[in-house]
């Protein structure tokens, strides 16, 4: 019984909050007070809990608390083969499933030392960029909803829905795609799918303009975000912030340019940055990134090469299903890969990719067997949340909502 109490008390946390001044809870209105926001607050994006110390409506300090999901993805990775783990990467950042799939298989391919064929890599690039647009649509929509503009969420989800339809045709699933394979992708993108992508892009530009018109002529929206939650450049670098949040603070760092993977070095695109580092800058940043993604996608469609979508490396890459039924060699390879795994050489690699939330890294340690000895996910949302205590200090309590939305955390990723 003793032990039970101990597990659920937050003594240390409370002590930390009360450490510099005693708070009289009975007379809350006259004093500083400690309140909880979340984990069931509608604006805390899932299961984020913030413990706030307030003086009136002004926030004196914030302590973010994670740890409500307990999915144990890193533990599960150690007990699964590399191929089996692909569907689990979907569930990390569930707004950008394809980006996670691509980052994970690229990490495994780096460990194996193999490369997918060019067409597969281009398709991966295409789905990753579509996924980025979809994720930013969710980010912008829910962000606007957090500060009161509910119409926006309908508009952005309408755009996202069109992307899901493309994924439905390509991967056979709208939400949990699990589309990539080690050494390639699951299915080839046929002409109809490519046409769907082009049609989507053609109408997307004007949809974006409409959204901008809706929000940026809205005085309430601007006033709630302008100059709120400023994250200075130096702090962002020190805290290890990545992705749109870092670029909104004025650092021109994008993994797609810094350490090009796939064929991003063949594509012409800009890295938009903002200088203000406030909530409004982070809104602009995401909007501009979507426009860049559209530009990238047009180039991908124009340059899409022909050929295979799975690498010819029988010891590491699963053969096509049709071949398993007709050819003995392929049947044996399939059997060996499913039963004993892909057995990469001993060693460790770190691979990171640019995700909608920031830099997603996989650190894999292999001991030569079919299971990873260790797989660590460097998730961007987890790290970005570290900025909350810095940016919330001195803000009003209603600004906290805007700030959380502007950082765009996905708790599935922060709370592995």
């Amino acid at each position, binding site marked *: 019984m003793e*032990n*039970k*109490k*101990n*597990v*659920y*008390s*937050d*003594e*240390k*946390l409370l002590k*930390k909050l009360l450490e510099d001044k005693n708070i009289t809870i009975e007379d809350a209105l006259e004093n500083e007070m400690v309140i909880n926001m979340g984990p069931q607050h509608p604006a805390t994006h899932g299961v984020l809990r913030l413990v706030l110390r307030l003086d009136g409506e002004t926030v004196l300090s914030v302590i973010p608390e*994670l*740890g409500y999901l*307990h999915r*144990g993805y*890193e*533990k*599960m990775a150690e*007990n699964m083969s590399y191929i089996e783990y692909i569907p689990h990467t979907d569930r990390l950042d569930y707004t950008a499933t394809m980006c996670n799939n691509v980052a994970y298989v690229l990490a495994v391919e*780096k*460990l194996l*030392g193999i490369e997918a064929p060019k067409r597969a890599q281009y398709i991966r690039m295409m789905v990753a960029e579509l996924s980025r647009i979809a994720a930013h649509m969710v980010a912008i929509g829910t962000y606007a909803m957090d500060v009161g503009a509910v119409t926006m969420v309908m508009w952005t989800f309408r755009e996202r829905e069109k992307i899901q339809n493309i994924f439905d045709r390509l991967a056979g699933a709208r939400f949990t795609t699990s589309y990539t394979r080690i050494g390639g992708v699951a299915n080839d993108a046929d002409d109809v799918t490519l046409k769907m992508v082009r049609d989507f892009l053609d109408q997307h530009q004007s949809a974006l303009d409409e959204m901008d018109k809706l929000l940026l002529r809205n005085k309430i929206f601007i006033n709630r975000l302008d100059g709120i939650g400023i994250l200075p450049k130096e702090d962002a*670098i*020190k*805290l*290890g*912030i990545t992705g749109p949040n870092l670029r909104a603070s004025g*650092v021109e*760092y994008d993994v797609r340019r*810094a*350490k090009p993977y796939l064929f991003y070095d063949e594509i012409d695109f800009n890295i938009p940055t903002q200088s203000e580092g406030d909530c409004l800058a982070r809104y602009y940043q995401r909007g501009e990134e979507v426009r860049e993604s559209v530009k990238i996608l047009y180039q991908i469609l124009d340059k899409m090469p022909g050929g295979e979508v799975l690498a010819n490396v029988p010891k590491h890459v699963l053969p096509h299903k049709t071949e398993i039924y007709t050819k003995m060699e392929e049947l044996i390879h399939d059997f060996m890969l499913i039963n004993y795994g892909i057995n990469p050489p001993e*060693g*460790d*690699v*770190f691979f*990171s990719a640019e995700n909608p939330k920031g*830099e997603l*890294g996989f*650190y894999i*340690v292999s001991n030569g067997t079919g299971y990873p*000895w*260790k797989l*660590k996910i*460097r998730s961007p949302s*987890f*790290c970005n*949340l*570290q900025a909350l205590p810095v940016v919330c200090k001195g803000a009003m309590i209603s600004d906290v909502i805007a700030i959380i939305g502007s950082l765009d955390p996905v708790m599935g990723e922060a*709370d*592995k």
Partner: protein
Amino acid sequence: MAFKDLIIEKIKKQFEKSIEEVKEFRGDLSITIAKDKIVELARFLRDDDELCFETCLDVTAIDWATRKNRFTVVYHVYSFKNNFTLRIKANIDGEPPQIETVSSIWPGANWYERETYDMYGIVFLNHPDLRRMYMPEGFEYYPLRKDFPLLGIPGSLPLPDKLE
């Protein structure tokens, strides 16, 4: 001179006796250093004019289960100036395993060290806020250690008492 060689040369010159291993695998450079030199190395990497490793991307640990130095703490640091990711490793042992924190050098390492403490029970000495990250305070086990079963330990996470 390639940047990789520059790092190796500079670190070897500065920490001659403390470097245990320099290894390159698939283009990733990793340097293993004695655990008592980790803060010194971190400060050197951040403050050196040519190296400028300003950001700590990640901190984690590996549990080798049967080896003499059971845990390896792994740091990934990034230099914006040189566009380079470096891996630093330190082998530690003992119960509880201990190592000095680098969060005074890279504030971003704060949460990652808490996470490593939570998952592996590695104590980061002088850490400003070493609490559990995901598991509740008072949870006795470290889930990512190899001796923690995949299905968990029954009764280790009791439900809260029912309100009367």
